[in-house]
């Protein structure tokens, strides 16, 4: 299940979550872009997740960028990136 951040719902026509095919974030982002053109421009920069964003897969911040694996029952969220002190 891919959750759509509220700030992208202008592109998704208020769809807030959906099932998408994809074994990794790259495939998920392609599927998202195919359904809702314009999302990739916000999510992806070059070959990586855009600066300042992070993806959470099943509660864990993905550490392999667009190659991060996504399972058939995974929950995916897009969030602001965090660091720490």
């Amino acid at each position: 299940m891919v959750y759509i951040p509220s700030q992208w719902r202008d592109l998704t026509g208020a769809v807030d979550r959906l099932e998408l095919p994809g074994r990794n974030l790259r495939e998920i982002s392609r599927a998202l872009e195919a359904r809702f053109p314009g999302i990739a421009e916000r999510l992806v920069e070059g070959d990586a997740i855009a600066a300042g964003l992070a993806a959470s897969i099943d509660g864990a911040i993905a550490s392999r960028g667009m190659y991060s694996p996504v399972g058939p029952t995974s929950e995916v969220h897009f969030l602001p990136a965090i660091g720490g002190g």
Partner: protein
Amino acid sequence: MTPKSERKKYKVIGTRPIRHDGADKVTGRAVYGADLRLAGIVHGKILRSPHAHAKVKSIDTSAAEKHPGVLAVVTRADMPNLKNKIADLGEGSVNLAHLGANVLAHDKVLYKGHAVAALAAVNPHVAEEALKLIKVDYEVLPSVTWVMDAMQDDAPLLHNDVFTKSMGKRASKPSNVPTHIHFEKGNIEEGFQAADVIVEREFKTASVHQGYIEPHVSTALWNQDGHVTVWTSTQGAFTARAQTAELLQIPVSQVTVVPCEIGGGFGGKIAVYLEPVAALLSRKCGRPVKMVMTREDVFEGTGPTPGSFMRVKLGATKDGKLVAGEAWLAYDAGAFPGGVIGPGAMCVFSCYELPHAKVDGYDVLDNKPKTQAYRAPGATQAAFACETVIDELAEKLKIDPLEFRLKNAAKEGTRRVDGPVYPRVGLVETLEAAKNSPHWKSKLEGKHRGRGIASGYWFNIGLKSSVAANVNNDGTVSLIEGSTDIGGTRTSIAMQFAETLGITAEAVHPRVGDTDSVGYTDVTGGSRTTFATGLAAHEVALDIQRQMRERAAILWECEASQVQVEDGAYCHKDKKLTFAELAGQLGHTGGPVVGRATVSPEGASNGFGTHLVDVEVDPDTAKVTILRYTAIQDAGRAIHPSYVEGQMQGGAVQGIGWALNEEYVYSDQGRMENASYLDYRMPTALDVPAIETIIVEVPNPAHPYGVRGVGETPIVAPPAAIANAIYAATGVRMTELPMSPPRLWAAMSTGKKS
């Protein structure tokens, strides 16, 4: 708490060995950045802007260059042109043009203390004299230092190339708001309709500084062969290398960063300030250049944590169930984008199960130093707001504030407002420990006294770590790790390694490597070091164990799989060798054994804490005295309990300073008026009581020993806990930090009882 039986299965973890770098640090032998001595070293100083906002029309360095004893002068003209290049620095990315302009101002200065030029001279006194000879022609511009003023349409614009981004969506008009974050969960209107009681309050917090006692210091040598070596005080040698190389536009292979001992960081020693400047000066004069900041430079030129304006609204039903929460947060980022609003917005409701919620967060530019992370960056401000409203809600509902928190506490399965679902977490356990603590059970008597409670949360991050190890033939192991050691992590990492391998902590010799001698490792920050680098050390131990079994198999002419490891010893049938005995035989069983591991663990490990405080408020002066303080925290697993307690105590006292004293006081011209320890006034030993600690252990499912990391969570709860205690003592709800005597006195005398 951990059952006794589980605790017993560990031999090293949970004990309190003397730290490996201890003797060096109590004898004055440890080499911190400023202690470095090199032949031919010269001294650099930075000229800083006297204005909060101004155009730099011209810089004339000719007189300084001619001054006897001056060896090199640099300005923005010596920096490569960096345009709007984004560089990935491991822990997040950074706009290089901004980073570069912070290190040496380009066409504008954006805060008082902004670096404008630098020079190197034979000694620091000559360097300081010569700074006065640099002539800068400024055109002073209007400035703004309060976050809400900076958001106004008519506010002075800091950058004309910054546009508001909302999860990647870019606005069309330049603004002082680089980022807007928005989260929604459920249906906020429905949620508040279901509430019987609603509390909504506004809060303000002042900028505070990390306050590490060691000022920033770096020495650079741009060698005649083109190689740059930087000795520096940094939380992350590799991050410092990446920033230095990118700013100088040279390959990382041309830069070696040697991390010296570091005298505190708390998030403020991640961004570079001096390293590239010292390198540029060294390139010009061909000698190693050492740069040490003054305390004033540290306050005025390095990262404070954001000042903030926040509005928090929470609703609950009569029976004490939270149903809806709304937060609006504006944090200042200082002179360049990239403050800590992200984690602030993600954290504001992180302690509670909220079916309906909405959060808006704004990163806001103003004429202050670029803010940097400070221990649980963004969380302390948000918790001050949320936990105060929670307290007021409990009071209105006539429910004990601890019970109210327990009833609504986030737990395994709780969906956070920003989306993800918590795995096993320990907030409930910290609340229960608080409830059973001697402090909570004690009676607080006397006039003008009150007790407060608050909870706090920090994510605790993973990121990348590398560790390598060499087995010595006497059975000891040297361990090389990439995490700089700010608070005893050499030892907490070595202990995990020792536990896994079945040797003693003393048999491990941990060392922090430079960027040429150990694999890439992210910063010591985010409470990640004992967790992630500890995980790497555990994996190295497994790697070594595997190789040692192979060696034993050679000696015993059996298969490695037939060699058992029991209590750290290697056994096959009736044969048995201790680790040390086997280590002594490596030479003739194939040579040295070297282990290595790199990790990049996913997932925050979720650190929760609950703090209790008793205060007394002087009715005449409004001075707050902390009578008793207890910090309770889920450490997952406390590797070295003394240093876990130390983190909890240190964080609590920083939080007490934030709550009661510390602030950047700004003049109308946007100048900081209290840039010294005397006037900034951090807590001293006399300002605080003993800090009692209770370590709760709810093991982190994502770590072999259950470690969660502990460094940051303890700063989150104190301001809210103290505000709640002040309310209990005086009937006055404080909504502004710091709750210093003038501010509290004003609130008390207007009789602002709620």
